[in-house]
């Protein structure tokens, strides 16, 4: 069976998904739209990002330099894919662990470049846009300010980023990483912000893996400005982690209330979970010494 990556060795590799949900040269739809049921072509790009050549590698054990490289690659993919005129949103994400349906253990993530703004992000941006129009400031900047004033849900922070369990956490160990200042997207990053994001990412992954003593599964998604040119003032770079474990041996299942009614049940206090993650080593953000 041939490998996807022909080189004998590599650092970070990106390639087009062999079985993409979206395609650059999308053919016409098989089923025609009706007046009531409308659909469009599945045009877009789906990429796979291999974080390391180490097939059995554990990312939390990798050096900070690996994370810096990954952030640089993510930035490059966001910029390059975002310049294509048929792409409105570049969505970078990672599904990690069998618990979220992954069977390939090689450290990797994915990128979907959509021809539209996906619904959850569109709803988030609409809320932020509405708040911006009403209050004249970014909703996420305001949220972070309130979180810092409260302090109980903050896990760690460095000069450029803050990790916290959100006030309205849907998952027990849900973690968000916010840019401290209003960075709309990777395009606004400085080199220091690349390093600071890498450092806080590595620290959170170490905390996750140290929490229960096994590699912690999660779904990670990066939210930032659409690449269609809209939303600079009210898009705020942040990362969201959704780990499925609610205790060491119990998973959170989406059931009647969550899927049928859209109301998430969380029987834990975000403040307590933030404290738990704060006290899980490492207690300080990993420092860059390079």
């Amino acid at each position: 069976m041939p490998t996807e990556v022909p080189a004998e060795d590599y650092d970070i590799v990106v390639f087009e998904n062999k079985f993409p949900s979206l395609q650059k040269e999308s053919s016409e739809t098989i089923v025609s739209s009706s007046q009531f049921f409308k659909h469009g072509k599945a045009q877009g790009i789906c990429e796979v990002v291999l974080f390391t050549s180490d097939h059995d590698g554990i990312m939390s054990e990798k050096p900070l330099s690996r994370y810096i490289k990954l952030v640089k690659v993510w930035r490059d993919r966001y910029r390059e894919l975002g310049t294509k005129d048929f792409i409105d949103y570049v969505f970078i994400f990672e599904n990690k662990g069998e618990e979220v349906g992954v069977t390939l253990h090689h450290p990797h993530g994915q990128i979907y470049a959509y021809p539209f703004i996906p619904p959850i992000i569109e709803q988030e941006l609409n809320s932020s846009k509405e708040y911006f129009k009403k209050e004249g400031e970014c909703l996420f900047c305001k949220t972070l300010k309130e979180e810092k004033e409260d302090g109980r849900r903050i896990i760690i922070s460095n000069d450029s980023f803050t990790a916290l369990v959100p006030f309205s956490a849907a998952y027990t160990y849900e973690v968000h990483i916010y840019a401290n200042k209003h960075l709309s997207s990777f395009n606004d990053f400085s080199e220091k912000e690349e390093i600071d994001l890498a450092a806080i990412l590595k620290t959170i992954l170490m905390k996750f893996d140290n929490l229960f003593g096994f590699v912690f599964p999660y779904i990670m998604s990066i939210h930032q400005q659409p690449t269609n040119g809209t939303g600079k003032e009210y898009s705020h770079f942040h990362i969201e982690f959704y780990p499925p474990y609610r205790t060491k041996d119990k998973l959170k299942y989406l059931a009647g209330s969550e899927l049928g009614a859209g109301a998430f049940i969380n029987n834990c206090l975000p403040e307590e979970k933030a404290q738990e993650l704060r006290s899980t080593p490492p207690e300080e953000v990993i420092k860059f010494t390079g």
Partner: protein
Amino acid sequence: MQIHKKRIKKEDGRYLIYYTFTDETKEGEEGKDVRTEMESHPEAMDNSSHSSTEQDI
């Protein structure tokens, strides 16, 4: 740290990009040849954005 990329076209027409970096710190065992190891794990991502063991990677 400077980023460099080399794009190739695979036999089936898909692109693949090798990213390399200069002025990097040494990363111990990460530079080893894993091609054989990867070939023993014939897996790929499916179109539901999960990983699948049905195809090669």
